[in-house]
């Protein structure tokens, strides 16, 4: 039943598109209904998933043949890696609709594209067939362009085009790897089934070029430094709901692909000797991930635009995910997975505050021009502070466990990396506090007055904000709610991977 | 003096082809360009007939009949378009039809 999530989203997209554009409230309610159905199915999946058994569940079994000439099957399912991300997609999907309640122009098209994007993302997370995964990945690219180019702000067409071309370039790398996989194995056993591929022992020569193609291809979408530049411009240009989806979910799509496909299928490449360096790719990715954390935080520190601060903080936080993935131990891997979920919620919340609660009302995002907003809009300020604290990784919030686990994992795997990461975390605290101070507590600016008379926060916005904040606390106080299935999946993953990775790289 | 053999005919045909190609590229009058195209087709005809005569049976000569017909049709269409162009613009020179870029 879980597989209905993307069918429902596609169906919703078509239904919403067919409604006349002046039926605005009907369109909104219908979109909310379809998004909520997706979330409900995701939550049902969370309840129905058997953690003890692990592996792929709740799908369509072994699937049905789709393109038999190439061994492509239409096979779906979820495991401990993908199920939390499906739920995340549902949560962001629903709250995104709530934060988009004020969209007046071409409402039906907006929600049609939005649901199309949601459906594509669900599809990626639920695909057990690599070919299918790539198809959904490509489906999810184009709606982003129109969402940003039509309803966005600040250099929207530039941001949209850059984002789409980066994603498509990543997609091209993935396609190259995909076409390679098709003929790497014995033609009789040709298959794109992720489970079967994971059990295949690819030759080290093939792994050596397939791994970087896939990791880079998906890594571009995950904001891997130095290919992250699409992310801040794209997020800033996007309308609120789209920024939430982009930073909250689509970047996770990239890291999910890195984990599931690049590392999952070619773990041997992580330890392989390239250019005379043993474990070349693992080293490279570790350094790049550390750069993500440090560079993203540093750049966020000097931004004047509120939304760019959040944009670069996303790049910084994705560094933790990528770092956790290459530690190849239980702490790091579970931490990365939890960080994916946690950052998804945090980024969604922060972008919602900046885009909807602040910018749509003040019509400026310059931190210098804001100031003193806290008194005029206490709800906005409190929500942002909650999100900001979670983003800093304060105990009791979801970010805390996630980053802690990643830190433990990297301590075990490569202790030296903690130096740049530690600096990055300190900078994170500084820029978050700076932003909170400048926007909400500093002296009221001369031009804007004291922000009295801002439009009040509406009910959908309040509901969505409280919902997201509640999840932050829930996962922060009781991480087992997700961590149990993540741990189980990571354990199974590591058991399998250990057979192909040199022992010293995968020590517990 | 020995009678001309296959190679002689082929050389003539290649020369004709090159003359035609040069005419298409270099000449400025569209009528002459069309004529040059015909020279190129006839160069091929000559080669076909020569090959046919020196050993390959009758196929080539049959081929030539088809080519002559097709070439006539091509000229008919070409002249029709040229006439239409002349009526519209009063010119049949290559340099005058530069409304469209290359």
């Amino acid at each position, binding site marked *: 039943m879980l597989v209905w999530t993307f069918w429902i989203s596609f169906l919703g997209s078509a239904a919403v598109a067919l409604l006349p554009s002046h039926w605005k409230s009907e369109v909104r309610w219908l979109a909310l209904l379809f998004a909520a159905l997706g979330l409900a199915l995701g939550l049902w999946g969370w309840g129905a998933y058997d953690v003890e058994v692990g592996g792929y569940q709740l799908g369509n079994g072994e699937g049905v043949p789709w393109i038999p000439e190439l061994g492509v099957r239409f096979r779906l399912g979820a495991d401990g890696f993908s199920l939390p991300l499906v739920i995340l997609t549902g949560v962001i999907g629903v709250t995104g609709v709530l934060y988009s309640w004020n969209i007046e122009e071409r409402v039906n098209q907006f929600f049609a594209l939005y649901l199309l994007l949601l459906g594509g993302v669900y599809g990626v997370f639920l695909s057990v067939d690599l070919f299918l995964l790539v198809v959904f990945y490509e489906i999810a690219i184009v709606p982003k362009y129109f969402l940003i180019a039509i309803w966005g702000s600040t250099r929207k067409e530039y941001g949209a085009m850059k984002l789409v071309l980066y994603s498509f370039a990543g997609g091209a790398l993935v396609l190259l790897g995909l076409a390679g996989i098709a003929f790497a194995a014995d033609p009789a056993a040709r298959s794109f089934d992720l489970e079967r591929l994971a059990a295949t022992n690819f030759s080290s020569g093939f792994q050596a070029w397939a791994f970087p193609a896939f990791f880079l291809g998906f890594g571009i979408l995950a904001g891997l430094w130095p290919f992250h530049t699409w992310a801040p411009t794209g997020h800033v240009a996007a309308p609120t709901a789209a920024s939430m989806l982009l930073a909250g979910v689509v970047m996770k799509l990239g890291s999910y692909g890195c984990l599931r496909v690049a590392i999952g299928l070619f773990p041997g490449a992580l330890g392989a000797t390239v250019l005379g360096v043993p474990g070349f790719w693992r080293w490279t990715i570790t350094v790049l991930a550390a750069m993500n954390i440090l560079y993203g935080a540093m750049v966020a520190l000097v931004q004047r635009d509120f939304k760019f601060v959040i944009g670069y903080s996303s790049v910084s936080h994705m560094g933790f995910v990528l770092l956790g993935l290459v530690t190849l131990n239980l702490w790091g891997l579970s931490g990365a997975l939890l960080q994916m979920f946690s950052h998804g919620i945090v980024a969604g919340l922060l972008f919602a505050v900046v885009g909807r609660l602040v910018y749509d009302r003040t019509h400026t995002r310059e931190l210098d021009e804001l100031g003193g907003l806290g008194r005029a809009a206490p709800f906005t300020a409190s929500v942002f502070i909650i999100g900001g604290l979670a983003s800093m990784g304060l105990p009791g919030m979801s970010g805390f466990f996630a980053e802690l686990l990643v830190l433990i994992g990297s301590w075990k795997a490569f202790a030296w990396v903690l130096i740049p990461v530690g600096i990055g975390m300190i900078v994170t605290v500084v820029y978050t506090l700076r932003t909170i101070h400048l926007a909400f507590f500093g002296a009221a600016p001369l031009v804007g007055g004291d922000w009295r008379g801002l439009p009040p926060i509406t009910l959908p916005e309040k509901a969505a904000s409280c919902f997201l904040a509640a999840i932050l606390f829930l996962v922060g106080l009781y991480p087992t709610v997700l961590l149990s299935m993540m741990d189980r999946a990571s354990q199974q993953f590591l058991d399998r991977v250990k057979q192909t990775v040199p022992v010293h790289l995968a020590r517990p | 003096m020995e009678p001309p053999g296959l190679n002689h005919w082929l050389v003539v045909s290649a020369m004709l082809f090159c003359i035609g190609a040069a005419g298409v590229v270099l000449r400025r009058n569209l009528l002459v360009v069309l004529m040059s195209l015909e020279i190129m087709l006839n160069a091929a005809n000559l080669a076909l007939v020569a090959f046919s005569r020196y050993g390959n049976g009758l196929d080539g000569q049959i081929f030539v009949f088809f080519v002559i017909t097709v070439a006539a049709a091509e000229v008919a269409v070409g002249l029709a378009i040229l006439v*239409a162009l002349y009526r519209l613009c009063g010119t049949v020179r290559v340099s005058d039809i530069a409304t469209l870029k290359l």
Partner: protein
Amino acid sequence: MNLSDLLPLLRFLAPEILLSALALGALLGEAALSRLLGVEKRQNLLGWLALLGLGACLVILGDQAARGETLALGRGAFVASPFNALLKTAATLAVMASVTMGLRAPFVRHVGENYALVLFSLLGMFFLLSAESLLMIFVALELTSLPLYALAASQKGARRSIEGGLKYLLFGGLSAAFLLFGISYVYGMSGQGSLAGLRDWLVAQRTAGGPGFLFLTGVCLMIVGLGFKIAAAPFHLWAPDAYEGAPLPAAAILASASKLAGIVVAARLLLGAFLPVAGNVLGSPLSWHAGWSPAVAALAVASLTVGNLAALAQRNAKRFMAYSSVAHAGNVLVAFLALDASGRPAALAAPAIAYYAVIYALTNAGVFAAIHALAWGARGDDFADFRGAARRAPFPAFFLLIFLLSLAGVPPMAGFFGKLFLFMAALQADATHWGLAWLVAYALAMNVVALGYYLRFARVLWVEPAEDLRPISTPLELRVALVALALLVLGLGVFPSSCLAAFRTMGGVLLLRG
């Protein structure tokens, strides 16, 4: 030969016979009705009759494909096979879209002649798709092209139409001359007129010291001629002008059915007849083998580069489509090179080329039909004339978006699978050494650029504001055509194996009868 022997022949030749009758009927109908009915009524009446006839053609072709029988006449002069019937079906569908577009085109005065030209051109394509001998290929190619020259120039009051038609004629004539001169050498050196005979002769020559210099010169000249036909760079110079000048219904045929026929005939010649002299382009240039492969690789790279980069700079929708067509020629040529070190083509190559040619024809017919519907209310066909067209005519604008995304290679549209199969075929050829990875990587990179410009066109329609808000009404028949083409593009995309399997079981491009 008595009558009972002729009847089965009639069954195989029925589409061609019907088409000839239709074309002649259109001419006669024009002559008979020109005094009785006004231009618009004649246009409608004859147009619907032509559509009806083409529909009947589709039925016959479907029957041929379903029966699964193959007939070869006259040493490959005419081969009716289920595979060919499917290709002809795609060409017929594209031409039907063009006829539908022309039902209300205001510029034509001699409507009967116009339809007759369209039908004769399609007849030429039918023969071309069935031809497996050099003579028939040449004659059919000319039968396809000559009406198209006239159609491209048929907007007699517009200077750019005449000029475009003239350029098309000159370059087309040049290409025919190159092709014919090449054919004369190929025929002369081998003494073979049929493609199967040529291949056998070439195989025999392997042990007898090679086919000789003159033969290879002939092959190269033929490649130049074919390059013109499928608009591969650097032989694409006619395409932008011919597309821009031609009225939209004619441009639609140029870009769809004519291209399909060109690709198929090129595949028959290169991958069929000339396969033994293919050479290869695997790995670094030092390890390449001489043959036609390096030349075709040069064409492919040039087409990918020129087509994609020049399309970025275009301001006119039709010129834009012309450069897109050059780029797609580059894409399809990639699969022509899918040969392993011993010269055997990859198993996926032939079905991938056929699949691509079919979906490309259908998609392009859709693009032009949608542009035609939008151009109804626009002043011209520059991008600027389509600004905000989605507000004025959401229906065709939506379908245009679908077709453009298919060309860009976005799933679930068929274009994605088409490109993917082409590139997979190229990688399959030398799967152990990834000999063609350089070419595939380049093609993929260029296709990222391609998404950029297709989205630019889509942006003009969907993102930019409209200056003129009057709605554009789309005639019902055009709507039906758009929906049908979109369903085909989506259906062949979501179920690619329906087409692939058919192409494989019915014999790919390579299966020559003789």
